[in-house]
């Protein structure tokens, strides 16, 4: 009724001043006024989404191009012929079968280690009163903001004294002790989560005679699933793409990580073509080019993409439930 009235009123107004306008054109204006902000919002968000998707599109498209397509400025999005060969070449140069296994083992071990140790530390700090509790939290914050650059040298000397260089111990053992790559951040996330979690369930279990360890495994662990999901995804992504510590602690070729394989491709790209032909038995027709480099980067990203495809729902819900954002 209300809208009808305004339209009639407007119609009267129009008739008085400009007889050529009719009722329908005003309906249009009202409609535009109502929908225009929404259209602008969606257009803007879609445009921004393009920026977010672009690197992946670029990687996939470029990795399938031939050398001629790369040099041809007319070919932007659709390669004239699809060169899946680039992937075989990239995998060969990256020593895929070995480096993938290395990356998978260290990433999995370090992630499991941090899930166990960081959740325990976060739980202990959030739930129990003990001497030095504030100090412990202070150390977490300090560990969060001290950059790896500052403490890498004594770590290296320590690991070399222990004979741990060229093993995976420097990358995995600290993870089981609540440190490792960004371990302090995970402790912080778990602590925030447990602070926001009601205590009643655990107290009830305690009254029923359930020991603290059993309470932790049987009751706390299932409730804390969303926090574990958040840390799981963050840790997998970061360990997978971590390059600083592996490059320092692990130097032997057959122990290298997958992501360092991209550098192998980049180094090979810089070699003169004659050496390429003799070294890698590559015919002149498809000499190494940036397409192979992009194929390499996509090989590195692909496992993470698949993992995220599986876990994205739990991860996004997890961030909303971890209480990171509330006090």
């Amino acid at each position, binding site marked *: 009724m209300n809208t009808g009235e305004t339209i009639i009123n407007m119609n009267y107004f129009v008739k008085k001043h400009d007889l050529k306008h009719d009722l329908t054109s005003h309906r249009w204006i009202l409609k535009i006024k109502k929908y225009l902000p929404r259209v602008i*919002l*969606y257009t803007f*968000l879609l445009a*921004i*989404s393009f*920026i*977010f*998707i*672009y*690197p992946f599109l670029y990687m996939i498209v470029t990795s399938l191009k031939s050398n001629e397509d790369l040099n041809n400025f007319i070919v932007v999005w659709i390669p004239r012929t699809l060169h899946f060969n680039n992937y075989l070449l990239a995998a060969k140069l990256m020593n895929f079968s070995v480096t993938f296994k290395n990356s998978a083992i260290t990433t999995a071990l370090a992630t499991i280690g941090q899930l*166990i*140790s960081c959740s325990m*530390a976060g739980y*202990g700090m959030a739930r*129990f*009163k*003990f001497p030095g*509790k504030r100090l*412990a939290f202070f*150390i977490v914050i300090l*560990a*969060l*903001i*001290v*950059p*790896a*650059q*500052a*403490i*890498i*040298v*004594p770590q*290296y*000397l320590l690991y070399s*004294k222990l004979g741990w260089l060229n093993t995976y111990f420097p990358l995995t053992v600290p993870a089981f*002790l*609540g*440190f490792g*790559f960004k371990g302090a*951040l995970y*402790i912080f996330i778990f602590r925030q989560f447990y602070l926001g979690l009601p205590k009643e369930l655990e107290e009830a279990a305690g009254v029923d005679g359930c020991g603290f360890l059993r309470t932790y495994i049987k009751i706390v662990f299932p409730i804390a699933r969303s926090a574990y999901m958040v840390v799981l995804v963050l840790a997998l992504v970061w360990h997978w*793409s*971590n*390059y*600083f510590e592996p*490059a*320092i602690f692990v130097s032997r070729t057959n122990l290298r990580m997958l*992501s*360092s394989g*991209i550098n192998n491709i*980049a180094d090979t790209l810089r070699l003169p073509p004659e050496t390429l032909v003799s070294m890698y038995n590559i015919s002149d027709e498809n000499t190494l080019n940036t397409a192979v480099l992009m194929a390499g980067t996509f090989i*590195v*990203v692909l496992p*993470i993409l698949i993992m995220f495809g599986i876990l994205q729902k739990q*991860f*996004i819900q997890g*961030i909303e439930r971890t209480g*990171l*954002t509330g*006090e």
Partner: protein
Amino acid sequence: MKRIRIKSETKQALIGLFFITPFMIGTIVCFLYPVIASFLLSFGDTNKEMAGFHINITGFQNYYRAFMEDTSFVPMLLNVLKQTLTQTPLIVIFSLLIAIMLNKVKKLKGFFRVVMLLPFLLGTGEVLNHLTGQGVDKQIISISNSNIIPREFILYLGSDIVKLLDTLFGTIVLVLWSSGVQILLFLSGIQSITPSLYTSARIDGANEYDMFWKITLPMISPILLLNTIYTIVNSFTSKLNPILDYVKQYAFVNSQHGYAAAMGWIYFAFILLIILIVILVLGNYARSSGVKGRKE
């Protein structure tokens, strides 16, 4: 009764200590030892004649060298600090704006949230490094190679302005790529604000602009702090941060351990200064605006 209470308190403390035992061992071995050793090392150097780890203390020599003798360290440090100081606020502001927009959207919300997390999966390591090496970040919104803007207009602007605009857009793209997690954190923060606050504000005659400054921003100020620190910490280990490679070069190729440690600590000192200022400013804001009325 009294005896039992004391006993249960000790028990609580023991259980608490049990849970943080791995962390305590880690603190000593993986954190305190390297921090102290590295700090001492920055005032000296390792003794090369003696096997193992012996520090010869030489005073402020390494620090003097970093500031006075090394011609490339100070410009690089200033450059990294400039990057941190420009990119961190940009990332926080952009992610907040996008989160506010996402909160208004009903359809495609799930799609947008996933898409905005995608660049996060690239990590901050070799993949991102090689993508930016190809200039992927600069070609998305590029003035100079674009077909949208007429050539005459580009010529009219002149190459300097076009170059400036290109770097500006390149920066914005990099900023957007590194704000995925922050967008998600802001979004969940905004969603946790009680809708009744907005309703009563609207009854009192507040418009969208007022409500943003008076309700949304104060309510999410703790996340503002969290996101800022997260962004700064994230930039430490980025491959695009040249200090990492520079320290690595000195420590493990030139094997000047003391000097490498000193550079690490100088970097930390500046970062700490920035973080303390952020905590002081944002912490005060969060406290003065009094966060209440959160939906649980």
